[in-house]
């Protein structure tokens, strides 16, 4: 059942808005990011990029670059091929990716050569002097062109087609049959456009091959340092113990820092060959044009329903643009990620989803931008679809949703597309949102405004997320099961160090991990140091993305702490001179049952662990836990946007935006709120201004921040937030994960609001981003039709 945070019992450390322990160093400019690291004799790498989206490389002349004083090496695809390092595996293992263009360049800005020099400036000058002769070829700019197979992009592959895979889930015949038999039916082509996470710190690496020790240290902007260590070992053949990956402070990731990029490999190869450290830090343009993009799903959404608004069937057919290599960061069994969450919060009796992916002359990627694999796309499809259905039924969009919500008694709920939702109370979350925003008043105001032709809109999104990959039996990267890990060492004086296999990039783990452990052990979270990102010290984990840190590593932390408590109990019994059976953990200390006041604290136990351990036990107090969760977690939220549209210019003003989230048990409300604010801002950007677009020749039109817009405090709307709490029944502390909910849940709330404003004009759908011109055009065309 949903409760609010206020109803929860007082806790020791959980549920408290403790200030972030990492902030003093960030605020004072004392963070240590990749580019802050400077090593003696370090060289710099700059990359040469293809100006063409599709071109044969006829020749590469290095001589002028090599003649420039300070240039130490020029590396091409041919050189890498000779060293057998030209191809990288992709995470799911179905494709491979070129490190440097070799034979053909397959997208604009593809990396063609690398120049290593004594300074960054000389490396850039050298890159300009590399002479590449290209023969331009016709490009494939859309997956629909690619589908025709008139031009075959990848000569290196055996099958001569641009079609990468077909994936489907659900019962096609049944879903189509139900759709045909439905009293009411809608169908819409909905695009989730190619966009980019654009973390403020771009990607980079500093590779340091020490020929004396034989160890390769790789500092990199990594969301998954252990996986990267394994990948480096597999690609280079260097034994894994000789590779040390360090992910220092990371300035935002959002999925962009999960893949391995060509620059990482070229810098590493250069360091191995030359024997000195080599650094590569990409520019903003390199980040936007070559590293992991997100989305690019063209979705045909069909929903059937009864006249009363009970949904009967869902079918979604998607054409996906994967770019030149299938580098989508998806688990092996799930090439389209968790797209099966497309039935959302609604009780569909039957459903079917399919995805066909194609190669095009665009950068590879398809990473999950602040969402579990492909969840934002799925959530957008269903939430837009439900709105379009409501319009067709002439029903309030909230009412339609309510008639179809999965009811709280139905959990654990097996969805028709194969997931088992853990818990939720969609009705309660939605009611709270309606009450706070004053939904009925707003509808009244809207009716008044419509009389005078004013365009006001109210948009809702009552979404369900799927996060925390997560059960290892289903999910993997490079074959490695998606568990996560924690290690806790309590020092004699009762403080300690906590390490996890995750790697935060702004999520606040240094604070929340300490809170989880402190809650379990009754210790002071301020005295628990949290460390992540160093593969020599942290236990093996799969990293931070897909909102998996709290659902997976969070579980590992709580369970490792409980192992400490188990051992602590033995020590406590020894101190209390009692049998273990007579000792219980209550009120954050060990108590002798039935003897009030007779207790010992964890701090006392810690000291005894080193000074006075029970005679028959090991000294010390530490524990490790590798946690493979039994299921994913399913956070949900009800978001409401209120907008006004300027009829003459197409400009949209977001008047109000409310997000009511349910992420289960909240560890730190302030951090949750911060995560929501950040994700809503990204959702707002996707809805109104962000897209990586291409002209018909395949030229990227959004290669820097004057063309790829990132909102600042000046244009971002004011965010209102609230929450309900429906604990996850299977998670050790009932938490579900929240980092991605606002990004998953908000774009459709904005779009639904604008479409609601435009409803009197008969406009049903406009693809994101809703630029002024697109809105203006839709209004103008609609008005032309009427008159």
């Amino acid at each position, binding site marked *: 059942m949903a409760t609010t945070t206020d109803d929860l019992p007082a806790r020791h450390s959980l549920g408290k808005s403790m200030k972030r322990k990492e902030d003093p160093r960030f605020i004072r400019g004392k963070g240590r990011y990749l580019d802050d690291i400077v090593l003696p004799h370090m060289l710099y790498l700059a990359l040469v990029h293809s100006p063409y989206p599709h071109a044969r490389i006829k020749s590469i002349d290095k001589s002028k670059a090599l003649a420039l004083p300070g240039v130490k090496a020029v590396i091409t695809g041919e050189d890498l091929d000779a060293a057998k390092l030209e191809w990288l595996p992709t995470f799911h293992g179905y494709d491979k990716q070129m490190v440097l263009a070799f034979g053909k360049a397959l997208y604009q800005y593809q990396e063609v050569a690398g120049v290593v020099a004594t300074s*960054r*400036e000389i490396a*850039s*000058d050298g890159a*300009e002097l590399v002479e590449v002769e290209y023969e331009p070829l016709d490009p494939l700019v859309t997956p629909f062109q690619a589908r025709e197979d008139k031009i075959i992009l990848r000569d290196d592959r055996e099958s001569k087609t641009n079609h990468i895979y077909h994936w489907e889930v659900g019962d096609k015949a049944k879903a189509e049959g139900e759709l045909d038999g439905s009293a009411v039916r809608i169908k819409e082509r909905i695009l989730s456009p190619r966009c980019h996470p654009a973390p403020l710190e771009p990607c980079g690496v500093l590779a340091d091959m020490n020929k004396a020790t034989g160890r390769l240290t790789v500092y990199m902007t990594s969301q998954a340092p252990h996986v990267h260590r394994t990948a480096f070992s597999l690609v280079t053949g260097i034994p894994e113990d000789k590779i040390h990956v360090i992910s220092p402070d990371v300035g935002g990731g959002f999925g962009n820092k999960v893949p391995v990029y060509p620059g990482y490999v070229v810098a590493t190869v250069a360091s191995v060959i030359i024997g000195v450290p080599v650094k590569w830090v990409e*520019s*903003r*343009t390199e980040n936007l044009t070559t590293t992991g993009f997100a989305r690019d799903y063209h979705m045909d959404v069909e929903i059937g329903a009864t006249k009363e608004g009970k949904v009967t069937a869902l079918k979604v057919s998607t054409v996906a643009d994967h770019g030149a290599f299938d580098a989508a960061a998806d688990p092996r069994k799930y090439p389209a990620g968790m797209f099966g969450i497309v039935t959302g919060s609604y009780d569909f009796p039957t459903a079917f989803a399919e995805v066909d992916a194609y190669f095009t002359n665009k950068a590879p990627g398809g990473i999950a931008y602040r969402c579990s694999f492909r969840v934002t796309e799925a959530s957008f499809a269903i939430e837009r679809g439900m709105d379009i259905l409501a319009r067709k039924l002439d029903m309030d969009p909230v009412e339609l949703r309510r008639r179809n919500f999965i009811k709280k008694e139905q959990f654990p709920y097996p969805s028709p597309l194969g997931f088992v939702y853990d818990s939720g109370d969609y009705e309660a979350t939605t009611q709270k949102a309606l009450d706070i925003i004053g939904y009925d008043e707003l509808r009244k105001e809207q009716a008044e405004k419509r009389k005078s032709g004013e365009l006001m809109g109210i948009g809702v999104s009552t979404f369900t997320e799927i996060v925390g990959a997560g059960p290892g039996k289903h999910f993997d990267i490079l074959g490695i099961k998606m568990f996560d890990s924690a290690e806790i060492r309590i020092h004699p004086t009762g403080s300690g160090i906590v390490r996890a296999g995750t790697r935060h990039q702004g999520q606040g783990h240094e604070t929340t991990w300490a809170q989880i452990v402190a809650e379990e052990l009754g210790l002071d979270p301020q005295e628990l140091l949290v460390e992540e990102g160093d593969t020599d010290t942290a236990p093996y984990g799969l990293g931070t993305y897909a909102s998996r840190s709290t659902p997976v590593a969070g579980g590992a932390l709580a369970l490792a702490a409980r192992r400490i408590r188990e051992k602590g109990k033995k020590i406590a019994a020894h101190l209390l001179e009692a049998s273990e059976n007579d000792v219980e953990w209550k009120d954050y200390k060990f108590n002798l049952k039935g003897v009030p006041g007779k207790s010992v604290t964890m701090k006392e136990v810690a000291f005894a662990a080193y000074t006075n351990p029970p005679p028959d036990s090991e000294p010390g107090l530490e524990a490790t836990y590798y946690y493979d969760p039994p299921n994913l977690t399913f956070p949900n939220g009800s978001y409401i946007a209120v907008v006004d549209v300027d009829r*003459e*210019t197409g*400009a949209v003003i977001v008047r109000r935006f409310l997000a009511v989230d349910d992420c289960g048990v909240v560890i730190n409300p302030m951090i949750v709120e911060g995560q929501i604010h950040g994700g809503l801002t990204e959702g707002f950007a996707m809805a109104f*201004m962000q897209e990586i*677009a291409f002209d018909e020749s395949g030229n990227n*039109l*959004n290669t820097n921040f*004057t*063309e790829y*817009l990132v*909102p*600042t405090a*000046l*244009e971002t709307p004011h965010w209102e937030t609230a929450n309900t709490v429906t604990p996850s029944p299977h998670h050790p502390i009932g938490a579900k994960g929240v980092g991605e909910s606002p990004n998953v849940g908000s774009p459709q709330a904005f779009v639904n609001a604008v479409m609601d404003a435009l409803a009197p004009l008969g406009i049903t759908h406009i693809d994101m981003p809703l*630029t*002024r*011109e697109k809105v*203006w*055009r839709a209004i*103008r065309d609609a008005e032309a039709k009427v008159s």
Partner: protein
Amino acid sequence: MFPAPFDYYRAHSVDDAVQALARFGDDARILAGGQSLIPAMRFRLARPSVLVDINAIDELAYVRESDGHLAVGAGTRDFALETAPLIAQRYLLLADTSALVADPVVRQMGTVVGSLCHNDPAGDWPVTALAARAQVSIRTPGGATRTVAIDDFVVDSYTTAVGTGEMAVEVRFPTPGTRTSGSYQKIERKVGDFAAEKLLAGAKPSKDLIRAAMREAEKIADPSPDNRGSVEYKKAMAGVLVGRAIAGALERLGVGGLK
């Protein structure tokens, strides 16, 4: 993104700057706020051999009113103009413009004269200067000063009347009469975006006149398509904004009800 190699010279007076330009030759460029020049250099679209920095010339940073105009020195940042008390009282068009150029961070560095010299077709200051019939003073290599009317100053996109070895030292905006008003309107994708469309107007009341002006603006606008909008959209917006600008200017003169 690192600029191609260049040399740097810091000038301490206008004479010093002009002499430096003469000494360093054709590829030397003046560095004012650097908000247009530095990004262009980082993209290697601009490759000056020498930068002559005028930021240390204190005598150029001023906003003063005299002889029927407002004089703004080449060292004056957008922010200084935006916050000059004179502006809010009498130069409403300049007040509107200075608050809409870029974002507050850029306005701390960028200069009004630098923007005129850069003459980006999407820039805000060239448009306002044209509407306000401004004049620009230019120091020649020989040390003389010539004054150019804005219509002659603006030659083409990114091209002005400032010749090789010359430096713009001041822009002068005529003081508006009491029956004159202005309003500056701009459509931007986000704060600090270059203008997709912007226009302004002087005053002459009536709804029909406004509509005629809007139609005329739509007709004569000759925009280029880009990510900010197509030609069609920009032409339509020229009309809408002219209408709003005239109505806004009139409202400031106490003539309401025309929006």
